[in-house]
Each structure stands twice: as structure tokens, then as C-alpha cells.
């Protein structure tokens, strides 16, 4: 959506390399979640952040609520990291848990 801008739109990585995805927010954001969608369409939650950074294996995410952005770093990329990555934000003026999704970054990891 317009409130959540993801970049790049697509990314090609060789196995073993590292890269970062980014989400910029156009309004204040209370929290961000990152999801990966695999080739069968299943959406898996990777991270929830209200601030700071989190790490899970080769994935690391950061959220800066003041500068209005979040990043997802993929370290030592593996073939199974391929998929479309979405960030989703809860705007500061939103009631409850109404997430606004970005349009995704399509990641392809090549041998």
C-alpha cells in the first residue's frame, strides 16, 4: 500500500551471499511484521518488532520508529530463502491490529 514502501521490488542472490530488504513508512508506525510467502503461497511470520532489532538464524530485522523504516537482512543466503517477502505495519493512528502490507520483494536465491 501507499503507507508501506518496499524496496527493491525484486532481488537475485547467489547462495552464500548476503543482502538487505527495506521498508519505508510514510506515517508513524507502532509496529512492523515481516512475512515470507513461498512458491505454494503460504505466508510465514518471520518477525514482529515494536522497536530495536531481532535475529533468527540467518535473518535479522531492525525497526526504527523515529526514522520510519525497517530492514530485513539475509545472511549466507540459501535456496530455501527464495520467496516473496512482505513487511506489514500497524500505523500509529490505526485501531487494533490492522496491518498495512507492502507490495513485497521477490527474492530468488541461485546456486
Amino acid at each position, binding site marked *: 500500500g501507499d503507507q508501506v514502501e518496499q524496496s527493491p521490488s525484486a532481488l537475485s542472490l547467489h547462495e552464500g551471499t548476503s543482502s538487505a530488504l527495506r521498508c519505508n513508512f510514510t506515517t508513524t508506525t507502532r509496529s512492523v*511484521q515481516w512475512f515470507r510467502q513461498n512458491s505454494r503461497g*503460504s505466508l510465514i*511470520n518471520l518477525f*514482529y518488532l515494536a522497536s530495536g532489532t531481532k535475529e533468527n538464524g540467518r535473518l535479522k530485522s531492525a525497526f526504527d520508529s523515529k526514522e520510519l523504516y525497517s530492514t530485513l537482512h539475509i545472511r549466507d543466503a540459501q535456496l530455501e530463502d527464495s520467496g516473496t517477502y*512482505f513487511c*506489514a505495519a500497524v500505523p500509529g493512528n490505526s485501531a487494533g*491490529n*490492522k496491518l498495512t502490507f507492502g507490495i*513485497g520483494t521477490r527474492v530468488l536465491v541461485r546456486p
Partner: protein
Amino acid sequence: DMKVTQMPRYLIKRMGENVLLECGQDMSHETMYWYRQDPGLGLQLIYISYDVDSNSEGDIPKGYRVSRKKREHFSLILDSAKTNQTSVYFCASSLSPNSQNTLYFGAGTRLSVL
């Protein structure tokens, strides 16, 4: 086993027919959601349900209605389906409407309206 289950997985309907998409979750989550996903648009929120009979419009509710009579079930209804409602529909749930709670998604229903 924590799971969100959607039925059916694939559905083909003719314009003007009624459509019922069903979603169930076994986690006793209070909050459930219906999203649709279209190329280039990401996921868009149709409806959110905070509990039984406590539903709220999302960003694109027009042409849809929902029903939540039991906490574990959340249905999406299209009365007189339109061709522009061809999409992939995802149901999700979270523990509560608190923004700290992560979403768990079902596998999706691919709907084609001819």
C-alpha cells in the same frame, strides 16, 4: 498443532453466484482477518473480527460480508460475485487485537469468478 485452515483451496464460480469461504483456527485466537491478494497490490484487508459477532470493516469491504458465530470460525461471503473479485483470499488470526500479536495465515483460497 497451531493452525489456520481454509476451505476450499480452489473455487470457480460464475458471475452472480454466491460464494462462501470458510476459515477455522484451533488456537482460541480472539481476532481473525480476511485479506485478498492481487498482483502488484500486496495484501488488502477486507474485514477484521475482534470476537463473535464483533466485526469491523477493513480497507476494501465493498462487495463482501462476514460472519463469526463461533470464535474458531470466520466466514467470508460474496453475495452475487463479480469478476473483479477473482483473487487469492487469505484468512489469518491473532491472539488479540493488540498490535503486539503476530498474525498466523491460512494457506489461501484461489477464487476465480467467470
